[in-house]
């Protein structure tokens, strides 16, 4: 009986991941910082984390939640509110006398606070909402995300949230670059740091999924009645998954704030949740690696590779018809429809990268016999 899975695919995967990190670091030192590649990599890393956190709920626990944008908003605001330098506060909170909070916390603390705040909101929302099933739960979480958005824009909370005005001037990814005394960048880290942050968070989620608790969550997804009969407390485990997922969505929100350099509640719409849901579906529901791949793919397509569709193009004397502002979104929608109709299991299905590698190894082994 061979219960121990071969370690080899795992090692190959880790080596690949390490190679990616090294490649990112080298590329950042060599290529101009304005390259589109880094926009894609930064945003991709943020979306990868949020997509994996959503996959933890939708793919691994079987809770169909659409509240991700709301929890990201909470995370982004908490991060922004607690890291805007005190000297800048008068300018940022110009309509609210500089705001009420007049201190800052270190970035790492603020990021963790962002996650905890989102998890706390998730806990409160989860009390009534997690009693619901499937579509009803999706609608309820979507509604709560909208309510959170409205609350954060409310002028009454202005001294804290700056009302409907944007938060800005907090540390962003570019502040991670190491500069010399003249202000020239010596070591570029503005892409590597988000990669590391997202990587650590995703690693934690993967560890959770492969622990005893992760197995319990998968059991709930497969068969709630049987899971309960095996002594798994449904309410407790669902709440756990919901809070953990929201924690990482909050961290993702904080990272999105760093990426965007500004935060405004009105940008965290349900459209953002759908984008993330799409990433999850395209990557494969129940596959962490799928979510990571597809988020980079998605961001690259929407920000970079399909940009040319938005501009007038001429091939020789021939002007290509239809190409104008907004056409990119049409093409994008069609691609998505094709994926959803014909590749319903997404890129990875519910397999992970090590699974694919080991399956190949297994086939080879059988061929030898």
């Amino acid at each position, binding site marked *: *009986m*061979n*219960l121990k899975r071969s370690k080899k695919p795992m090692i190959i995967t880790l080596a690949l991941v390490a190679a990616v990190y090294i490649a990112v670091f080298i590329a950042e030192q060599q290529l101009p910082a304005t390259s589109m590649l880094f926009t894609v990599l930064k945003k991709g890393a943020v979306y990868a984390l949020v997509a994996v956190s959503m996959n933890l709920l939708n793919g691994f626990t079987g809770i169909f939640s659409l509240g991700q944008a709301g929890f990201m908003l909470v995370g982004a605001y908490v991060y922004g509110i607690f890291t805007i330098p005190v000297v800048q506060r008068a300018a940022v909170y110009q309509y609210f006398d500089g705001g009420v909070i007049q201190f800052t916390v270190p970035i790492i603390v603020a990021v963790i606070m962002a996650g905890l705040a989102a998890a706390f909101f998730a806990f409160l929302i989860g009390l009534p909402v997690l009693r619901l099933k499937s579509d009803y739960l999706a609608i309820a979480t979507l509604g709560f995300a909208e309510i959170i958005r409205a609350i954060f824009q409310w002028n009454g909370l202005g001294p804290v949230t700056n009302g409907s005005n944007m938060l800005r001037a907090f540390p962003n990814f570019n502040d991670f670059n190491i500069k010399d005394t003249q202000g020239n960048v010596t070591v570029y880290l503005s892409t590597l740091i988000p990669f590391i942050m997202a990587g650590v968070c995703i690693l*934690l989620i993967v*560890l*959770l999924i492969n*622990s*005893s*608790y992760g*197995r*319990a969550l*998968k*059991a709930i*997804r*497969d*068969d709630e*009645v*049987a*899971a*309960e*009969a*095996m*002594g*798994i*407390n*449904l309410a407790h485990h669902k709440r*756990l998954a919901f809070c*953990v997922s929201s924690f990482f969505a909050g961290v993702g929100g904080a990272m999105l704030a760093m990426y965007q350099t500004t935060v405004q509640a009105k940008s965290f719409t349900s459209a953002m949740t759908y984008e993330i849901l799409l990433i999850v579906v395209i990557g494969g529901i*129940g596959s962490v690696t799928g979510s990571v791949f597809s988020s980079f793919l998605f961001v690259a397509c929407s920000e970079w590779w399909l940009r040319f569709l938005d501009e007038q193009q001429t091939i020789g004397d021939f002007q290509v018809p239809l190409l104008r502002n907004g056409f990119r979104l049409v093409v994008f929608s069609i691609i998505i429809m094709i994926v959803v109709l014909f590749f319903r299991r997404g890129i990875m299905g*519910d397999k992970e990268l090590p699974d694919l590698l080991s399956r190949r190894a297994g086939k080879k082994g059988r061929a030898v016999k």
Partner: protein
Amino acid sequence: MSEAVNKNEVLRLENITMQFGGVVAINNLSLEVNQGEIVALIGPNGAGKTTAFNCITGVYEPTNGIVYFHGRPIVVNHPQGKMVKQYGGINGDMYKDRKLVVHTPDRITHMGIARTFQNIRLFKSQTAFDNVLIGTHLRKMSNMFTATFRLNAKEEKANREKTAQLLEIVGLADVANELATSLPYGKQRRLEIARALATDPTLLLLDEPAAGMNPQETDELGEFIVDIKNRFNLTVFMIEHHMNLVMDISDRIYVLDFGKQIAEGTPEEIQKNPVVIAAYLGVEEE
């Protein structure tokens, strides 16, 4: 009333009535199961056997009655609200002064009652090994953080060893890494039993364990049930339609028909009981 008169008693149902709207699915059922026994619950289709199981395991809340487990009441209920008027059973007032006791199915599994299902409910996307491993989750001492950071390695290892052992015992060690749903039917049944055993039960409820098996498989299953009963010091309460199996291995039999208990006794007594024969075969009209 007496609580735990009999020290050997594992499970006792007292005047359990389950009413869905106007339909009385179980009518005033009382029975007990003693330590080390194999007790069968039989009856024609729709007699309410699975409903009785669901009342014991907390899936349903019975409308009226008490379930004792090792002398401790784990379910206490009496008709309430609209049900007071609608109630179609008897003894409706008997427990109205008792404090209600309601437990979710997972709590009841914690107490030591494990079950299998009539239509197999394995975790479809997981291997046979993981299916059984999930059964060990409820006895964990770790919390989410220690589990995530692998600080519970010792417990995890013990659970994995226990799982491997259980699979060995039920004879599925060679298919441990196969997807649960890819196994043949008989093995899926055994896997479900292994999964139930992983929760460390003292009472095992089997809901038609031999459904869909051929006579030879059924015989093997009978031996298997007796074997695990002795090995794990269990008490077994089962629903079954295969009369050969029931008569072979049960110590006592309860017969249900239309939600009512119509007979109780040893296999020999039940075989001769005219009421049971009538319920199964119908009465010849003169």
